[in-house]
């Protein structure tokens, strides 16, 4: 267990500057999007420039309205870090095989065994994902503060935090309102990472043949998932559909972990 935590700490350490960079980027982009949106709205009524026509009562503009109207900016702030994290699912393995001093040699020769290495990389990915999610919640609080500071009094209207969160389609995806949807979204993400890890380990074990095997393995698993999702068309009760989906999900998770551990302990080449 000690080796696992040490390896996890190393993985976090190696990604920390990219993580800090992504967090700053997200904050800056979202703050800028909110500031620009409020500025533009206020200008529509000439409030900021002092050219407001007398007698015209401006429409109020709540924090939820701001979030709902800045989805493009938010997409820019969120999707680039998401893309980086998706790429990092591959990079977290391959960077240790390439370069001048391949670290894979050392990692595969650690007396603590190779299983902690696999789980440290897996945990690191989830830690990064949930850190970004946590940052987004913190960012919302900062943005609300920004809203309070930069919105002219005339336009301000109170809104609930949750209304603001769900005014954005991206937030609905990142933090679904229903816990079951949250589990489905992040469960599928978890399975995706496990399948990609298994694919990478197949490639690292069998090289060119491994690429073909990984492609077949991924295709098989995706097909099973699609079939499971289509099971509601078989006149099954909802509970039966859920049972089918959960069984396929459980089998794929267990299969991916079993295959990955088998490969990393017995077949992989440095």
């Amino acid at each position, binding site marked *: 267990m000690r080796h696992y935590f040490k390896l996890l700490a190393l993985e976090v350490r190696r990604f920390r500057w990219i993580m800090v960079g992504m967090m700053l980027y997200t904050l800056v982009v979202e703050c800028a999007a909110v500031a620009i949106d409020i500025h533009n709205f206020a200008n529509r009524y000439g409030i900021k420039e002092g050219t407001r026509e007398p007698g015209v009562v401006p429409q109020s503009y709540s924090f939820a309205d701001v979030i709902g109207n800045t989805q493009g900016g938010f997409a820019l702030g969120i999707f680039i870090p998401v893309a980086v994290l998706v790429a990092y699912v591959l990079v977290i393995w391959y960077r240790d095989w390439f370069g*001048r001093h391949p*670290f894979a*040699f*050392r990692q595969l*020769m*650690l*007396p603590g065994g190779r299983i902690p290495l696999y789980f440290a990389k897996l945990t690191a990915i989830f830690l990064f994902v949930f850190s970004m999610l946590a940052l987004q919640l913190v960012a919302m609080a900062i943005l609300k503060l920004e809203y309070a500071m930069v919105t002219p009094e005339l336009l301000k209207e109170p809104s609930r935090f949750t209304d603001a969160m769900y005014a954005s389609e991206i937030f609905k995806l990142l933090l679904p309102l229903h816990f079951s949807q949250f589990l489905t979204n992040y469960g599928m993400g978890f399975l995706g990472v496990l399948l990609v890890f298994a694919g990478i380990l197949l490639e690292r074990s069998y090289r*060119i043949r491994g690429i073909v095997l990984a492609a077949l393995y991924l295709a098989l698993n995706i097909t099973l998932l699609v079939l499971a999702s289509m099971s509601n068309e078989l006149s099954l009760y909802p509970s039966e559909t859920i049972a089918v989906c959960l069984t396929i999900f459980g089998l794929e998770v267990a299969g991916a972990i079993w295959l990955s551990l088998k490969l990393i302990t017995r077949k992989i*080449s440095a």
Partner: protein
Amino acid sequence: MIRIENAHKRYRWRKVLDGVTFSAEKGQITCLVGMNGAGKSTLLKAIMGLTPLSKGSIRVDGVGSKRELYEKVSFIPDHAAMPGGLRLEEGLQFMADYYKSWNESRAQELMTFFRLNPRDRVGNLSKGTAAKFGLVLGLALDTEFVLMDEPFSGIDVFSREMIGDVFSSRLIEDRGVLVTTHEIDEIEHLLDRAVLLKDGKVVRDIDCEQVRDEQGKSVLDVMREVYRG
């Protein structure tokens, strides 16, 4: 003793190892000799479990599991095998964290001997300096065997001399050393045994002193016979 028996390994359609059998004894320096692609590095990697054999077995005396293997046998590849962003002192700490057999005072002694700066980053080291740091990481482990892959490859003459000195020092004494090298003349006088590989097979397995005394030949002479026909 490290015993390799009937080792077979294929890379796609090419046989890299084709029934290799030999032993490396503790207290001896054994050199694996062969042309490029003869399977020398593959053998070292197979001993360390870094590549699986297609067929055959490898046994290390007193080792029952991989965990024990990495505490009893150290492998020094021809690079530092550490993340480029790490400082050398952090690399040493990494080793201390994971290996029970890590000997900190010897590590510091080696750092001084090779004149390495602990604040340097691995990624900024030249090939020669990285090779020296690799030697620090491998030799500071209190292991019974040391495997070295091309320790002189691409290294300047002064660094070669320093690395050559290691072979005749107490750092190696009593350990079993299995080394692969093209620059055989650097350590020829120190070798106890030489195993010559050709086309994935062991073609000669010689006791260097015996060949010197009885036939008046050096390892290089035997290599000429084998590889030049």
